[in-house]
């Protein structure tokens, strides 16, 4: 009797698709995030072949705490200080400043666009997400080629600023912590714009109206009402940008290395070459920061209260009249956006056609790096044909697109399912576990995430190449999709599905015929963001890619490291163009957009 009742209960529990989905994802996500984590931790106590085994004077494969002692407590030659503590401090400084810059810039623009009568709003909001769509090193590369001069760094040649305008910027402005933080801040400012802007746009107008009626000044309203309301969003932005900046690899390589400014991600990469054990310890430290951020975020936002900012009664908010300041502010903003989003593209185009660096005269230009049949006459190394005639480039483009589509389909679909499960079983422990697990990959630095998948795959012979990268990408981008999935599902009233349920429509049909069509644009945004992120991803794949020529981004990194500047710039431009085309095609065809994906 009891047993059959139990059986019945179990059967009833499993008859609900939401339960099954949550259970499956609980297991799947545990395996795909915790298992690699454990294999990675094992690597931190294992002796690897090569210099590591020689230094430790231990047999290859044996277990030891040597790497920990070496990384954290070696005072000889200041080893620990220069390999760990100094880069850690630099990382923290850069990440905190980048977050502050992102919030300040993104938040201000969000305020101007949503709450004032600013001119050129359409242009501003269209171009503002550009820096996020473009690979982050885009701005870094641009920064260096634009501002370098003979007074600083290697002191050998002038960039556009010095050679054309005769302005020589100081070293701290061009290389080191400041430009790294600034470039990362600008790159992630769209986060702030979308998160803070979303709240400002949907904010309940009653609060401000009440204050206006009581004759409160504008400044006081902003200080006492607007700021407190956006504070949770500001904090979320801070933590997201912090986590992303911490794992940024290419920006510090381009802007830090010339002045010997190292951060955790760059030392981790160079440790990975000869001292894997220590490299994985650095990874563990980065992940600890990620977990800390997740806990902090939860504690402060009090179990993700951000869903409640949209109320049913939000009236038209009166917009602040900027008056005479309107045009100057608008023009300044447009100028900054042009500098951040459009000028880099022009620079890349220019740098990809000049033969000898620094000479921008027409006689020094050729289209051969794009369409030439024999480029060895200009740059006698690298490839012998222009990139558009190079089969390697086309196959890398195909691989990049294939990988991006795969990751976006897997992550996007999983995101919808997680969203369905979590929203149906809201409040249950299971739902909150799955929700948190699906968000966790976001907080693992991309480079670290790639590293732990590398560690995991080395023990599984059939796991490699495309499969490994697709798996890593799908899990890494799941948070984007699951967030938009959960948010979209929460907006859906239960009776919509119940109506179909009563008429006996099976679950999969309800999903395809009822739920998906209603929230189509939100869901598609959940597909778009992983796709765009994947197309321009470098850190995640740099360690697990079969060969550098396999993806466009790793190919670009290789070319750039080798110093094949023209090819590098051409490929960079190609990546940006492809990403922009994908983004706008999807946007025009389906109405999905990046803003919805990130902002929710």
């Amino acid at each position, binding site marked *: 009797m009891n047993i059959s009742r139990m059986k019945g209960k179990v059967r009833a529990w499993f008859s609900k698709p939401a339960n099954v989905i949550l259970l499956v994802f609980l297991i799947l996500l545990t395996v795909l995030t915790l298992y690699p984590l454990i294999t990675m931790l094992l690597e931190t106590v294992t002796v690897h072949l090569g210099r590591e085994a*020689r230094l430790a004077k231990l047999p290859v494969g044996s277990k030891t705490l040597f790497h920990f002692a070496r990384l954290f407590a070696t005072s000889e030659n200041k080893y620990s200080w220069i390999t760990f503590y100094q880069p850690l401090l630099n990382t923290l400084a850069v990440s905190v400043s980048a977050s502050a810059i992102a919030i300040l810039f993104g938040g201000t623009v969000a305020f101007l666009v949503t709450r004032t009568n600013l001119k050129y709003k359409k242009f501003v909001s269209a171009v503002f997400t550009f820096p996020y769509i473009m690979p982050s090193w885009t701005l870094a590369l641009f920064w260096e080629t634009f501002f370098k001069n003979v007074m600083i760094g290697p002191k*050998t040649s002038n960039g556009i600023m010095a050679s054309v305008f005769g302005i020589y910027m100081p070293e701290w402005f061009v290389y080191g912590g400041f430009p790294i933080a600034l470039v990362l801040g600008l790159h992630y400012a769209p986060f702030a714009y979308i998160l803070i802007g979303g709240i400002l746009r949907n904010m309940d107008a009653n609060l401000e109206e009440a204050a206006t009626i009581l004759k409160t000044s504008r400044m006081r309203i902003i200080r006492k009402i607007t700021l407190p309301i956006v504070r949770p969003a500001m904090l979320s932005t801070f933590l997201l940008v912090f986590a992303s900046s911490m794992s940024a690899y290419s920006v510090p390589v381009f802007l830090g290395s010339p002045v*010997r400014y190292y951060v955790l991600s760059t030392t981790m990469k160079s440790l990975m070459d000869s001292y894997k054990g220590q490299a994985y310890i650095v990874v563990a430290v980065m992940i600890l920061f990620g977990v800390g951020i997740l806990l902090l975020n939860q504690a402060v936002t009090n179990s993700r209260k951000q869903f409640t900012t949209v109320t049913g009664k939000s009236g038209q908010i009166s917009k602040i009249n900027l008056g005479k300041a309107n045009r100057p502010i608008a023009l300044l903003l447009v100028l900054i956006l042009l500098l951040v989003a459009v000028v880099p593209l022009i620079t890349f185009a220019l740098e990809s056609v000049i033969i000898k660096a620094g000479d921008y005269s027409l006689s020094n230009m050729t289209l051969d790096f794009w369409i030439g049949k024999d480029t060895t006459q*200009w740059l*006698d190394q690298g490839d012998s044909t222009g990139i558009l005639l190079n089969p390697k480039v086309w196959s890398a483009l195909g691989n990049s697109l294939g990988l991006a589509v795969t990751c976006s389909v897997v992550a996007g679909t999983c995101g919808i399912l997680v969203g369905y499960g979590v929203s149906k079983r809201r409040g249950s422990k299971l739902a909150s576990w799955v929700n948190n697990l699906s968000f966790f990959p976001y907080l693992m630095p991309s480079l670290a995430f790639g590293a732990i998948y590398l560690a995991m795959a080395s023990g599984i012979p059939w796991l490699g190449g495309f499969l490994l990268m697709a798996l890593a990408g799908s899990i890494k981008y799941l948070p984007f999709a699951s967030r938009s999935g959960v948010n979209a599902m929460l907006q859906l009233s239960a009776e919509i599905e119940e109506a179909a349920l009563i008429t006996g429509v099976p679950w999969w049909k309800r999903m395809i015929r009822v739920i998906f069509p209603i929230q189509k644009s939100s869901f598609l945004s959940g597909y778009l963001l992983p796709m765009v992120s994947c197309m321009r991803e470098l850190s995640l794949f740099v360690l697990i890619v079969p060969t550098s020529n396999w993806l466009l981004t790793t190919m670009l990194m290789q070319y750039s490291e*080798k110093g094949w*500047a023209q090819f590098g710039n051409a490929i960079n431009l190609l990546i940006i163009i492809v990403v922009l085309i994908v983004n706008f095609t999807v946007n025009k065809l389906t109405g999905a957009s990046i803003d919805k994906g990130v902002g929710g």
Partner: protein
Amino acid sequence: MRKLLSLLLALCLMLCAVSAFADVAADVEAGSAMSHDELLAKAKEETGKFVVAGNTSRIADAAEAFAALYGIETESNNMKDQEIYEKLESTTIDMVMIQDGANLLDYIDAGKLYNFVPAAVKDAIPENDQQPALIHQFINKLFIYNNKGDSVPAIKNVWEVTDPAMKGNVIFKNPTTEKVNMNFLVMLTSDAWAEKLAEAYKAWKGEDIELGEYKNAGYKWIAEFLANVTFIKSDTTIAEEVSQDTAAGKIGLFVLSKLRSSSVLTDNLTVAQYDATANGYTVAPFSGFMYPMYVMVPAAAKRPYTAMLFIEYLMSEEGFKPWGKNIGAYSSNPSIAPKEGDLGLDIWKANLVIEDPNYILDHIDVEDFITLYCQ
């Protein structure tokens, strides 16, 4: 019972097949005694795509020519050493070209890479250059300076680049990111080089070297050299940057073959050793350094005989062309002369620091000292 037996038999056969397949070591040994025709015949029996990986961009040209010559489908990959080691574990690579000799020794000891010396060139190549790994070519990184302006750093003694006045004017690739640069510096701390550096110091300053806290003259030179150095991320970029009209007074230590690119303004550059040879002096005690590129067969190779055929091809004049058509690459095969206008391998061996993998492996801790001065 019969079923069980046949199953066991099948299993045995399969195991035999697998072990025979995996026994690249035996293949390499057999291949070492084979003539070109025998190797070719064996290689033709092998199936599947032939995959090579090397730390040189020119491997693509060599692989393409090889594929055309023998009608064997060949895929080439240009990877850094560490990438190659990484991929040895996870993907199939049939032949590798690797630079960092120190790591290589460990991989040979661990049985992950095998040395193969083609019978065709065995007698011609110096014994030192075929053990423990066959050297395909030597590559040199030289002091090369910008010859514009009033303060041309035409060095005759390497201590000149340690002069505080040269701070920021010396350009090098970060040794922590390129192991051959690290190896070069480690070699300087050996007794032999430290002694030569101490002599050179005396010749330069006119007084005996004062070591202070440094263990020997090698350490002192490294510290003072790195203090003056600015790092640039690639040798190609160093060549381009040092050659700029705006780069007067700069000196770089980079790969000679980078001068081949027309993005480099070669007229603005002078190679210290070329000038020394032309004018009959020496740069004391070295004018740069040289490191080998090794060719090896991985233990996991699926086409070992094709790999051996390819190595034989690379050691021939025809196979060396992709590198030999320019300056800065020197075949270990004495019958292949360097590019016209370049100096011979004997001159380079006499004037450059050459890495000794065993010394480097026994002195891994010196790398920490070097890393400290890279900060």
